[in-house]
């Protein structure tokens, strides 16, 4: 079975000469097609850089990146855009929703960008929002939703294009523990229910038990690869 993500000896550096900073050093990682991984590490350790390379937001300085069976190591910006649109789902740490679009329209936006619209898209968006417990909030703008609801809409949007890989950048950082647990449970349910792979960046070790395994990163080096003890 094809892995959802394969990173082979990935290095990412910024600057040149004495000013060169290595954000990611010889990182190698494989994520199975239905696997959920927690990626933990302190600030500045390279978590977001790894996530960005995995999602086609950033190109590596060296190494090979394979997403959904496609090598994107040397993809052009336009090809990377296509990969993000069709193969990867994102839930970012900060801005996740377009403020002038309703919950439903935020999901439909994904299909609009693919040039696909119509009843099938609307039905899919409605079904996703229903699964996420937002059936009655379809037509609400983000400003009319709570933090937890906004995060659920973002998860729905990330799943809208039926991605091979979903990347979550600290999805619970703005939520309290109880709400964070709820959101993680929802992520696990949605991701596992669809047989989709996921990488979840988190600072909170209490959330790692929802994942199949935990990968630690420190100073750009992938350190540990441990199996989850619960969940």
């Amino acid at each position, binding site marked *: 079975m094809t892995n959802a993500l394969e990173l082979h000896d990935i290095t990412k550096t910024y600057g040149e000469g004495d000013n060169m900073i290595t954000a990611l050093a010889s990182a190698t990682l494989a994520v199975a097609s239905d696997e959920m991984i927690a990626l933990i590490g302190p600030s500045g350790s390279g978590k*977001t850089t790894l*996530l*960005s390379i995995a999602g086609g*937001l*950033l190109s590596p300085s060296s190494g090979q990146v394979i997403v959904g069976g496609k090598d994107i190591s040397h993809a052009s910006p*336009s090809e990377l*855009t*296509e990969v*993000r*649109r*069709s193969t990867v789902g*994102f839930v*970012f*740490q*900060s*801005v*996740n*929703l*377009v*403020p*002038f*679009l309703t919950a439903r*329209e935020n999901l*439909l*936006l*994904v299909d*609009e*960008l*693919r040039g696909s*619209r119509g009843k099938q898209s609307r039905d899919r968006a409605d079904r996703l929002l229903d699964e996420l417990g937002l059936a009655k909030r379809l037509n609400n*703008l983000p400003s009319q939703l709570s933090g937890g609801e906004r995060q659920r809409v973002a998860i729905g*949007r990330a799943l809208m*294009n039926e991605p091979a890989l979903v990347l979550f*950048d600290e999805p619970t950082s703005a939520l309290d523990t109880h709400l964070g647990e709820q959101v993680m449970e929802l992520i696990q349910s949605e991701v596992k229910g669809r047989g989709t792979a996921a990488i979840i960046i988190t600072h909170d070790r209490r959330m790692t038990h929802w994942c199949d395994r935990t990968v630690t990163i420190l100073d750009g080096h992938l350190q540990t690869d441990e199996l989850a003890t619960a969940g």
Partner: protein
Amino acid sequence: MFLAIREIKRAKVRFTLLVLAIGLLVFLVLFQIGLRDGLIGQFIGALRHQSAPVLVFDAQARKNIEGSRISPDAQAALAQVDGVGRIGPLGESTFTVSNPVSRAKSVEKDRLIDAVLFGYEITGPAAGLGAPTTLTKGRLPTGPNEGVASDRNRSEGFDIGDVVRIEPGGVEITVVGLARDINYSVSPTVFVSWDTFQAARKVRNPDATVVFPSVMVVEPVAGVSDARLVTNLSTVSGVVPLTRADAVAQSPGVASVSQSLNTVIGLLVITALMVIGLFILILTVQKSSSLTLMRAIGAHRRTLALSLLAQASMVVFAGVIAGAIMMALISPALNTLGVSFSFSQLGVVGVGAMIVGWIGSLAAVLRVLRIEPINATLPPGMQR
């Protein structure tokens, strides 16, 4: 388009204000153009809306028909020029007139006003050369003592059936037709036959043995352009041949009026450019986080840029409609000031506004094109 429409729908007040601002600018541009065309039309409409494509002035008249007289020698020389098809006289003079017969009750029979007469050949080889081209009612003169009057002055004793008398006590001209925008020197204007014109001139100057045409009106033979004809006619000494358009544009006073009002119109266009450009740019900066998110989830740069241009187009189009409505509502009051409004003007201004809107949006488009999707991973406030 989806994004553009949704955003407008969700920020009605903001976009309505922009539409009204653009509408006001469009109204001001339409007003200035109407004022310019109205003024020029009243000054020189008679030359603009007569049928001859080329007019020949006396060189000493400095392209002013009122000071121009073409001598018989010059007339004969002009007729011999290569490329001349038909050539005839066109007379222009200002007279004091009264209205012994008028439909308008407000016009008293002994009231004296100034009116301009244009005389052209209605028979012979040059028949119809110099006739008004914008007849709106009635007919052209077919015999002596008939005339076509400027329809702007119909309520001042120049309606069809009214009689205009050259004072003191001379030729009487019956108005048989009305034509649009044929005023000259902001006066009531009547086009009559060359014979009638000569008779009117002799009323004012009984001792005159011959009446010289003010200008010669010329039509080229088939296959010769107006410009070529003008070049050929330039070989005759003591005259200045001009195409109809040049005769209008270079008429004394018209150029300066055009230049002044065109400067005002230019300033309004620059203002519109800045208003639209700044507004779209501010909107773009305000939603840069959303645009970054969209880039991150797979929106191509061109998709976002086209959406921005579509939004600018919709806003400008609505602004043009708003401006046209303002102009249409107020135009009845402006007609008395000589301000004209037409759909062709609106079309030109509308297309111009659209281009201005697109140019104004360029800064915002450039900003959109510079958005990097990686910024979506940065915390708020850190995005580049």
